[in-house]
């Protein structure tokens, strides 16, 4: 187990290093010379040279890369082009809002998926099962941003029940979380339903019942523990979608998270900020996947103990 942990942690750091490198290359390639961008368009060459020297941009690219890595290790992500902000402070202030949105969405979606998935697995072919199938098909085809617009139109504008934009309190969660849950739940429900049906057909489920274990206990311990494994993997994989989805949702609902920060900075061409936001988003994603992997292995002894894959 300890060795497994070490190996996975090493893997995670390698992927993070790759991510950092990629972001560095991407932004250097895409944004061009930061020194020119930082100064007014008609700035003289001397000013630009000075900026360049100040930022270390007159060094060769690999030296710049090493500087960049060193700065990152120190927690220095540079300065915003506008105003005297540390990128780190702004990004770290935005991160909790994104995480809160994503976590609430995942929790709500997981509960919905477990309830609907298990119910439709146990009552296959029933009206409930069919209704769930219709929901899954429809929700899957709904463009997320459109649903967000519609929800705002109906609940905020026409009915006035819920706040449309900005973060003002718990009620602000309702519309963005609903929007994102509609995107996330279909695949979760399908997976829960499917793995539940498969697990119910296993010999050990019948064997547990034959030993006198009550049905409820068999479902909640024996079946759920096995059937939840695919769900957990999936949640990990989907955390990407939730994060990616949240960037769009944040823009629509004016949610002060990483996604909105990235898009706003992009529009105002505030590149250090974009860089910081993308980096944090990517690292958060890698870390989430790591955590999911670990959870998975704790739940499944076949992986933890390295039995056949």
């Amino acid at each position: 187990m300890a060795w497994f942990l070490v190996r996975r942690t090493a893997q995670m750091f390698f992927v993070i290093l790759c991510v950092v490198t990629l972001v560095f290359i991407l932004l250097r390639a895409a944004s061009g010379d930061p020194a020119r961008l930082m100064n007014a368009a008609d700035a003289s060459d001397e000013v630009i040279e000075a900026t360049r020297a100040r930022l270390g941009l007159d060094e060769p690219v690999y030296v710049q890369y090493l500087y960049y890595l060193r700065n990152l290790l120190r927690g220095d992500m540079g300065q915003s082009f506008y105003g005297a902000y540390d990128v780190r402070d702004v990004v770290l202030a935005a991160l909790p809002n994104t995480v809160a949105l994503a976590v609430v969405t995942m929790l709500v979606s997981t509960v919905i998926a477990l309830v609907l998935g298990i119910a439709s697995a146990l009552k296959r072919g029933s009206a409930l099962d069919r209704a769930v199938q219709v929901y899954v098909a429809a929700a899957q085809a709904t463009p997320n941003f459109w649903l967000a617009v519609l929800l705002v139109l109906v609940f905020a504008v026409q009915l006035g029940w819920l706040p449309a934009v900005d973060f003002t309190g718990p009620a602000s969660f309702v519309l963005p979380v609903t929007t994102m849950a509609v995107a996330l739940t279909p695949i979760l429900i399908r997976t829960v339903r499917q793995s539940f049906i498969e697990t119910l057909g296993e010999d050990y489920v019948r064997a547990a019942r034959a030993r006198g274990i009550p049905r409820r206990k068999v479902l909640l311990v024996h079946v759920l523990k096995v059937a939840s494994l695919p769900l957990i993997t999936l949640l990990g994989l989907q955390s990407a979608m939730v994060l990616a989805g949240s960037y769009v949702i944040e823009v629509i609902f004016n949610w002060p998270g990483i996604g909105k920060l990235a898009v706003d900075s992009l529009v105002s061409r505030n590149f250090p900020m974009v860089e910081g936001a993308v980096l944090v988003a990517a690292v958060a994603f890698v870390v989430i996947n790591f955590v999911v992997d670990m959870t998975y292995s704790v739940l499944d002894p076949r992986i933890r103990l390295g039995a056949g894959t």
Partner: protein
Amino acid sequence: MSGGIVSDRTAASEAAGGDGVGLLQQLRQRKAGLVGLSGIAVLLIVAVAAPWLAPHDPASQDLGNVLLPPVWAGGELTYPFGTDAIGRDVLSRLIYGARSSVLISVCAMLLGGTLGVLTGLASGFYGRLVDTVLMRLGDIQLALPFILIAIVILGMMRDRSPIHLILVLGIPAWIVYARVVRSRVLSEREQAYVSAARSLGASNLRQMFRYVLPPASKVVPPIALIDLSHLVIMESTLSFLGFGLTSPSISWGQILADGRQNMIASPWLPVLPGLAIMLTVLTINLAVEGLRDDGTPRRRRRRSDRKAADADRAAAPARLPGREVSIDGGAGGDRDGDGDPRASADDVQGRDGDGDGDLGVRRNGGGGGQAQPLLAVEDLEVEFDTPTGVVEAVRGVSFTVERGRILGIVGESGSGKSVTSFAIMGLLGEQGHVTGGSITFDGTDLTRAPEAVMRGIRGPRIGMMFQNPVGSLNPVLTVGYQIVETLRVNRGMDRATARQVAEEAFGTVGFPDPRHVMRQYPFRLSGGQNQRVMIAMTMALGPDLLLADEPTTALDVTTQAEVIDQLLQVREEHGTGIVLISHDIGLIGEVADEVVVMYAGQVCERGPTETVLNDPGHPYTRALLGAVPQPGAPEAQLAAIPGELPSAQQPLVGCPFADRCDHVMEVCSRRDPALLPLAEDHDVACYLHHEPAAPEQVATR
């Protein structure tokens, strides 16, 4: 979003695999696929022919007709979908929007698909370094938040042409295709014909395109369509956020974003383009359904398997599509109405000692004055509902088991042996029903007992062991947890006592270090060890009756002997009645006191083991005995019984064994022989031994 595609796909294919699909649903799915594909064709036509289809120039402004409602909301026919804030025709804009949205997505799909198939082929075919590098690259790419990077790249550009969007959307999709194609290639390339081509000296490239590509590319179309629906949404999202095509090009996401500015005054403005996107995605998803249905080999094989093995399935409901834990146990056998004077559930609350002279008098199989047997199965009939019809798995089976005796049930797979034992346990699942007969256990008719009573019986009173010991233990719980749980639930022990009892039980089945075994997961133990765990677990509850369903089939010979010894010991020590189910008549001959031979859900012969084995009356029993390998005889002499079991889905006419019988007579195909005495306690259902009986006698079988 790439992550989204991958996981979506896996779950989708999982979802496709498991459900039992009848012919009707198959047809419906094919129709859905057809509708989907023609929908895609229509979309493509609209996209290409936009200039001819659109009634107006999408950019021309009619400032006198700003924000007109659509025709169904009181608008004019000139602008059927109304106009936007600067008087542009919404319908024309939607048609032109299809152009960029659909065409860009299709091109991106083609780009990603081509890249992915090529890299997948290379990765699978060359292996080693190429493979490692490509797949790691893919892993890292999947670890990046795609949409954010797409936004960054596109946001950097001042002008975005369709080519830019196609590149940004298309390139990252490669990994999804590459992974699937790669795994397909890996399995295909070892096929004989490829090796043959290789030894003939075909060049690598030639091998790749000639032999490996065609089968590998079979898996691509469904993935491509799923990818397409994601791309449509991605493209709209990007243009909605303002990172799509720069004007004057139009796309749905952009129209939606424009419409949002005026959504209070004209709610249809954001609604219509959204509907267009949604319908497009739905159409693509329908096509995916259709493709999945006739394109996935796994699915097709399942179906033919099913047809070929109807009878097999009847006997092993574990393989039935959607077998489930039944809610109400063995309920359901109320065909007799309520007038039956036999055991009603009420007089059997709880156990009453050893069950002698207990509540009321009950009739049982054999006859009046004898002591009541532990278990009496009488005229049991079991049916299964399957997508292809009702399967009669058990058609009138009767036998009795006494305390301390071993009854062997023998027959080939599909004869209904296991179903009979599941019926006794009340664990037939949702699809299985007892449709006739009774199962009287210690005075209680189990076919009528409510679930609460069954729960008191399963485990503490009737134990069950399964064919596959590893599969009958939960893989993610330690065996210790499982035995402790069993003891606590059934005997109400606290955790510490249960642990102690469990360790003792493990000790008695021969584990030298019970504590160590308790901590193990089933996959860490061998088959024989698992079966011993099962014995310990089952016997720790001290049941009166043990159903052992092929307990040694999955084990090697030495272990088989050990497990059988354990069973005999259990019988010696506790006086447990045992039903030993096996297809191995040799094993039954060694240990059973009485034997029941089953064929096609019926009893064809029964009697004391010695009599039946030494003097078999039924041709099927003789055939089974002929199929037992004799020591020293070469493998080839093992006589397999020619022919197949009759279909369990058709009503039987005549003797079920007639088609395979060497002694078949004219009467055999007309009438089903009754089970009649041949000697004392020895019954045979065969016209070789008695004349065809009168019709009413026939019915008593």
